[in-house]
């Protein structure tokens, strides 16, 4: 037998398992992954873990956080100008912003992959038209296109998500398109074609395993942009309305209180920062593991 069990390697690892074993060595990335998982858990179970109901108003207005003089343990992060619990509103904000961004990334990636792959596999006029159309859409700044879509649909949380996804979709399609196009010229894809493989099989076994690294960083990019844009639109007042408050809107609503109660502005910003940071570190670790796995 070629593979004998006297050596440590008793089993041949698939590229995925190998990538994972490299990834596991990266402590920071592992920590980021756990924080990311916790954040996603918060999004899913936000309804069960809210310390107070978001609309409850108490008499104590503008309480500082618990660890600062004057803070009370009932309101861990203090209260806002209407006596609402900051932690509760923060968790709700995370749910709306992060949840929206995750949903949006999922939808954009599925739609973008379908359109991009179809375009890359069809040749000729249709692909050419799509190419130029995407080119033109890409030079419209995302904020501008989001504003245009908001102006057309009217401001609301759902429309904000739609606007952001539509403004990010061209980027995703374009990146996927270029990746697949590059991959199609590789010899192993041509060989698979000569085996008689149809397009679906070509994508599944030939192309996608090999563009994993760029997919990971692309998804990360789209996700970060989604978070920042959703909160930017919220901040500008085009996102959530009334009581459902997403992180950007939370900042905007407390901007006037920045000197009397700065934490109302600080906490949502830090929350956005941590979300983007954690997902970035996680995917960057993943990407490095994929690259390292390919090098060896």
């Amino acid at each position, binding site marked *: *037998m*070629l*593979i004998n069990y006297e050596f440590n390697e008793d089993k*041949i690892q*698939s*590229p995925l398992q190998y990538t994972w074993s490299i990834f596991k060595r990266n402590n920071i990335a592992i920590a980021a992954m756990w924080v990311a998982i916790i954040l996603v858990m918060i999004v899913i179970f936000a309804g069960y873990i809210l310390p107070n109901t978001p609309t409850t108003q108490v008499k104590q207005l503008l309480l500082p956080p618990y660890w600062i003089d004057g803070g009370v343990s009932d309101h861990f992060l203090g209260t806002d100008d209407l006596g609402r619990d900051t932690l509760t509103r923060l968790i709700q904000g995370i749910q709306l912003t992060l949840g929206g961004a995750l949903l949006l990334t999922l939808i954009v990636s599925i739609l973008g992959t379908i359109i991009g792959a179809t375009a890359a596999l069809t040749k000729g006029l249709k692909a*050419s038209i799509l190419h130029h159309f995407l080119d033109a859409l890409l030079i419209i700044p995302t904020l501008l296109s989001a504003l245009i879509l908001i102006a057309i649909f009217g401001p609301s949380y759902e429309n904000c998500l739609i606007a952001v996804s539509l403004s990010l979709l061209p980027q995703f399609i374009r990146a996927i398109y270029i990746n697949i196009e590059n991959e199609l010229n*590789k*010899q*192993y*894809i*041509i*060989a*698979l*074609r*000569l*085996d*008689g*493989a149809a397009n679906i*099989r070509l994508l599944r*076994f*030939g192309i996608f*395993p*090999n563009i994993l690294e760029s997919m990971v960083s692309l998804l990360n990019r789209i996700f970060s942009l989604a978070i920042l844009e959703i909160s930017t639109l919220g901040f500008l007042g085009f996102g959530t309305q009334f009581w459902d408050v997403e992180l950007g809107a939370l900042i905007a609503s407390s901007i006037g209180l920045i000197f009397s109660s700065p934490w109302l502005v600080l906490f949502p910003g830090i929350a956005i920062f941590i979300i983007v940071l954690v997902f970035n570190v996680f995917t960057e670790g993943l990407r490095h593991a994929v690259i390292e796995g*390919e090098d060896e």
Partner: protein
Amino acid sequence: MQTLLNVSNLCKNYKRSARFLSSGFRAPLGPISFTLGAGQTLSIIGESGSGKSTLVQIIAGLISPSSGDISIKGQPLCSLSQQERCRAIRMVFQDPSSSLNPKVTIGRILTAPLELNTDFNKQQIKEQIQETLALVGLLTDYLDFYPNMLSTVQQHQVALARAMILNPDIIIADEILATLDISLRFKIVNLLLNIQENKGTSYIFVGHNMNLVRHMSDQVIVMNNGLIVENNNTAEIFNTPQTDYTKHLLLSHQPDYRK
């Protein structure tokens, strides 16, 4: 000798499209006609850019010809289904490290053509793979390996196994020996000759090394500017080349120590 492959008046024209976004101009190919007998080896030689690769890619089905007919065992190639075509002609690429998908096991690489082109059940697929691996001289243990775990020669063997697994009539090999070390090259050459002896497969080679071409082939086609300059059996080409082009080509490939 039975005629296996018949190519007649094959042409490929690249028209410079009138649109602004044209992808450039390439030299046309053809018209080209030749025949290949069963169990024979045909070598195509010529300087780079002479259309050798285009020709074999047309035969392999990667590029569609502008005009002309290719028929195999008397049947025109265009009348065959994709599956029949795959079973008739297989191609081996120049560099196995780029023609074997790095993310897929050898087992999967070898299973794919069987799944796509035959009605074999799992057991038959397994047997066919074992038989083919034995033919190219590999152990079945390698099935769980990924291509980058193998040495270059083993990768060549796998690439050859992928071509042989459907028992094709013709194997097209596009300069497959160029990347190999001289001692390893002979291992593959002997392997190829063994396979031909056992299975009666025909080969179409694109070659650079004149000594190998002379060693392996029965028939040689010399190409220049997309046209056939000379088409004759090997001994004739090497001993009494008819055109200056062929003479120069042969001369340029004489190693110094022969002088």
